[in-house]
């Protein structure tokens, strides 16, 4: 029973998903599926409550050491539950009563969250793999859900093919590490590596794992799928998949890198350093020349993955805490902005070019204001979560002596300001006479709720981040090798 408590949020989500599917099957064919969305929201809320409750549990493992509940995993559980909750609200707002397969869509979101949560808690690579696949496959499917557009299946296809390709690499990496150490448990691997057993096999395996996860977090140069997928997938889904699976994949990367291979940091840190630099630079430069808001945000998400990787490279407890915190703040603002885009585009993404957003603030002050606010947070203007996250990440990096990485990163964030601001100014400039009239539908209750939640979160993270920070720092304590000597980077010891 105690074991089951350690996976309580996941269980709750599975139950909610199954109930939802049953309810879907029992409902009349023509009736509106939106109530199912609210059912899913209730499920997500319950999962959130369960996740928060897990803070009460003493840290420990369950099911023969396959899954672990500690401050780190619970932190991500809470984050993922929140992301799913808000994404569900956005979806309820965006879809019409006639949209097909809604029941499935809601169920997939819940089930996908199960995978993401397991990813953050797994200590056995097998479970990591299965959970990764759950989250990936559900997102592949959701990407293809906008069936009326030819772009949506196309984006699902690209996501699917490249994602599976990456999975194969990830898996090969696991196989090689299994070959080198004879185990797939994270602590056991660490112990085997600690015993001085580091054949070349481990390096190759680790490289492949990084490649595989690099794809999942869309770090350059493994980012090619991101823009197409974001452009084609339905916006509410993008809100989820640009944050949830990414956060989970980062959690996995953290756990593997810091949990299994802390002793090999001299090898993986340079790799992550380059990934971070490439992601930030390619992401920002790529975003500069986009005309489509969703593609632009896709490139921006690549850049943000880069910022997150900077925190990894810091190799300190502060770095872990910063990465965790950044994941939260990125989730808040990115989900928020996709809420706006999804509503303005009415699920079908009628208008996604930046020019289409000209004068949004005139047509709907609320949406325009919200969009500008989230963009400002993405730029990293103070008193928003985006700023504090970035600040914290770079503070951690600089603390570990990564001066150049910090400079590159902050210059990048300066470049990024340009393309975000282009949208802000578009939103606030008078619409051209000839521009297509963008009749923005009145925001519905779920959307208002979603906007409120994300905006409040962004603001709170920027002004009083103390609570989340404390949790993030607590999460970082999970990796004792790095937290005991918080501050002094491993490389200097």
């Amino acid at each position, binding site marked *: 029973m105690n074991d089951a408590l350690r996976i309580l949020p996941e269980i709750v989500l599975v139950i909610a998903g199954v109930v939802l599917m049953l309810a879907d099957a029992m409902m009349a064919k023509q009736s509106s599926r939106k109530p199912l969305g609210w059912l899913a929201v209730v499920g997500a809320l319950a999962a959130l409550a369960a996740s928060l409750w897990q803070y009460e549990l003493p840290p420990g493992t369950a099911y023969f050491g396959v899954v672990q509940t500690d401050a780190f995993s619970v932190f991500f559980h809470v984050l993922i539950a929140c992301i799913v909750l808000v994404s569900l609200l956005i979806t309820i707002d965006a879809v019409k009563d006639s949209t097909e397969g809604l029941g499935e869509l809601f169920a997939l979101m819940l089930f996908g969250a199960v995978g993401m949560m397991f990813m953050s808690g797994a200590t056995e690579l*097998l479970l990591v*793999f*299965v959970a990764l*696949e759950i989250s990936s*496959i559900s997102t*592949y*499917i959701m990407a*293809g859900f906008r*069936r009326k557009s*030819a*772009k949506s*299946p*196309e*984006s*699902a*296809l*690209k996501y*699917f*093919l490249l994602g*599976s*390709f990456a*999975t*194969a690499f990830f*898996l*090969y990496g*696991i*196989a*090689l590490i*299994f*070959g080198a150490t*004879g*185990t*797939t448990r994270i602590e056991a691997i660490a112990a085997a590596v600690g015993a001085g057993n580091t054949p070349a096999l481990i390096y190759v395996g680790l490289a492949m794992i990084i490649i595989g996860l690099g794809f999942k977090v869309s770090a350059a140069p493994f980012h*090619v799928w991101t*823009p*197409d997928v974001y*452009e*084609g997938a339905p916006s509410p889904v993008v809100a989820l998949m640009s944050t949830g699976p990414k956060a989970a994949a980062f959690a996995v990367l953290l756990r593997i890198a810091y949990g299994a291979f802390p002793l090999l940091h001299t090898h993986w840190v340079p790799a992550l350093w380059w990934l971070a630099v490439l992601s930030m630079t390619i992401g920002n430069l790529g975003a500069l020349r986009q005309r489509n808001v969703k*593609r632009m945000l896709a490139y921006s998400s690549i850049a943000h993955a880069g910022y997150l990787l900077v925190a990894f490279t810091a190799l300190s407890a502060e770095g872990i805490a910063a990465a965790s915190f950044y994941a939260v703040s990125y989730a808040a603002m990115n989900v928020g902005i996709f809420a706006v885009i999804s509503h303005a585009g009415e699920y079908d993404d009628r208008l996604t070019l930046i020019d289409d957003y000209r004068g949004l603030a005139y047509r709907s002050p609320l949406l325009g204001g919200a969009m500008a606010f989230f963009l400002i947070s993405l730029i990293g203007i103070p008193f928003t979560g985006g700023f504090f996250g970035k600040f914290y990440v770079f503070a951690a990096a600089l603390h570990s002596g990564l001066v150049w990485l910090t400079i590159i990163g902050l210059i990048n964030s300066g470049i990024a300001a340009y393309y975000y601001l282009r949208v802000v100014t578009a939103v606030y400039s008078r619409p051209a006479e000839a521009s297509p009239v963008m009749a923005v539908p009145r925001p519905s209750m779920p959307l208002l709720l979603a906007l409120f939640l994300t905006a409040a979160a962004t603001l709170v993270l920027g002004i009083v981040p103390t609570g989340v920070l404390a949790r993030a720092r607590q999460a970082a304590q999970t990796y004792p090798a790095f937290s005991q000597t918080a501050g002094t980077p491993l490389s200097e010891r």
Partner: protein
Amino acid sequence: MVPTSYYLVLSAILFSIGVAAFLVKRNIITVFMSIELMLNAVNLTFVAFSRQWHQVSGQIFVFFVMVVAAAEAAVGLAIIIAVFRARNTLNVDQIDLMKL
């Protein structure tokens, strides 16, 4: 008696061929099949290492890979069918509504 490394090299060859096929082939279905080939190559590695360490978990990994591959196949082929319905082509280069 065969050195385990032979099996490993064989799996590496298969994996590399899979990678090459993934990049070179133009038909979506074949591209997908090359992913399956890669997964199979990984499976061979797992089995070989499982024998070397006398660890059953390696084989169980393979078992899971199979399940996952089956799930992926179901979803992937459904996606391929959806794409084909929308675009009436299976050529990777013609699936280009969105510019990379």
